[in-house]
């Protein structure tokens, strides 16, 4: 920074707390907002506050939503007997973009990670179990991430859900569509070979 101004430093710090933002980017964003027309800063701060005020967790699936229940949970055309469990809203959004999934979601808001102090009670697992007991669910698809934490969370859930007699599936690991095999990383390819399926 060329000058020292406590208010600017506070703004930079605020940006730095956001995921994926380093020191340089934080400074660039702050300086941009300060040199751009005042309306732009106004627009941003209002948009942040308004979104914060309107968005909450869906009382059914825990996804972020403006209406409760969320549009997916409220949509009768969607298959209520299938629930896809994801770690974060971004996961549900990614699957939704794919367009192939017609069931409902459940967002855990994290994965088991003792290092970060996240145990079963920190996740929305109780809410999921209540849903499974109350609704007529036939299949739970575990779509947690392919990390150690995501895998463990999937194992934990599968054990709890299996006790209820509901089918549990785990999403497949595989090769990206439209990509040559040579572009997939070795671990993904090894998984893809292991998880191969018969040609129908």
């Amino acid at each position, binding site marked *: 920074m060329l000058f020292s101004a406590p208010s600017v430093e506070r703004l930079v710090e605020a940006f730095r707390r956001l995921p994926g933002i380093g020191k340089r980017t934080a400074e660039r964003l702050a300086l941009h907002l300060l040199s751009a027309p005042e309306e732009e800063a106004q627009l941003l701060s209002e948009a942040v506050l308004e979104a914060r005020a309107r968005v909450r967790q869906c009382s059914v699936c825990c996804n972020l939503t403006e209406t409760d229940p969320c549009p997916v949970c409220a949509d009768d055309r969607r298959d209520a007997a299938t629930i896809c469990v994801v770690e974060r809203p971004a996961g549900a959004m990614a699957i939704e973009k794919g367009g192939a999934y017609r069931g409902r979601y459940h967002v855990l808001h994290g994965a088991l990670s003792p290092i970060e102090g996240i145990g*079963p009670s920190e996740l929305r697992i109780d809410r999921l179990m209540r849903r499974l007991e109350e609704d007529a669910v036939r299949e739970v698809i575990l779509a947690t991430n392919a990390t*150690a*934490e995501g*895998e*463990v969370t999937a*194992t934990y859930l599968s*054990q709890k859900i299996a006790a209820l007699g509901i089918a549990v599936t785990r999403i497949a690991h595989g090769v990206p569509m439209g990509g040559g095999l040579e572009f997939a*990383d070795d*671990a993904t390819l*090894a998984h893809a070979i292991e998880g191969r399926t018969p040609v129908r």
Partner: protein
Amino acid sequence: MYVQRVECRLFRCLENVIFEPEPALNIIRGGNAQGKTSLLEAVLFAATSKSHRTNVESELPQYGADQFQLRLRAQRDTGAVDIESRWFRGTKRIKVNGVPQTRLSDLLGRVNVVFFSPEDVDLVRGGAAQRRRFLDMAISQVQPPYLAALQMYRQALRQRNELLRAAQPDHDHIAVWDAQLAQYGAVMTAQRAAFIAALSDHAARAYTQIAGAEPLALEYAPDVRMDESLAAVLERSRTSDIKRRVTQRGPHRDDFAVLVDARPARSHASQGQQKSAALAIKLAELALARERVGEYPVLMLDEVLAELDAQRARRLLDAIDPQVQCLMTTTELEDRHGFRDAGSALFRIERGRLEKD
């Protein structure tokens, strides 16, 4: 495969060095602290992103500098590989053939190297941790799925240990980490067993060539036997693990025994035998990598000649296949082994400056 060209900038005492070795035997001569080992270390670091001397990367830039750059060009049967490694104030950026790499697994195996330095006698004399480190690095270079399993296992182990330190550990929660450890642990154990069995055959052959008559053998000593279930072992030791707040059983406690004349070399072999055994293990790694990858890795031998008498030095050189590119350092300035006559490339390094003789 062979290294064609290495550029070092601000790496250790190598301010600005270009090294262009020949595809076969290269001898780098120089006194102590002139930069011989640093030159080999530069090749190792470019190829594996690791140093054999330190885990603290901030020790690698030249004294007073806050950055270094390495560039390595190698020829493989399949074509040229170009690795660029830039370190700037704690941040490392690696490019392979101009493409930025974010994961270690994407770098390992591009240029395979086998490195031997005098401290590697600890493979035989030192603790189990050193042998595990060797195994993990050697297998990861030739079997990428091993590295993936190892990284998942290590992460699960960190998580489980953290859970064991909690005020009131939740048994159901520990059990799922056990399942994770068992899954990836099984991959590690199977690959380690296969690797050590193959390594043992090659090492026995190399040992006979360089040292003499006594038979050498390597025996895998897994912490949890392969016919036992790791999941069951973890479950049985859970209460005790909670008391001690650490995961006491599993592949992270594995070892392998080095046997000379059927006795543990660690306690029963002479210093000379221990050195020869360590060297034989490295030569075995080289031969095994060739079987798995299809061509020989680059062999680097740091200061091995000084410790061997003329006869053993000769036997060592005879044991190395002429197809192997070997980068060898020595403090001996006169050419008592007749390298020049044998057609080897000779280099001399002095105060960080390299010259071809």
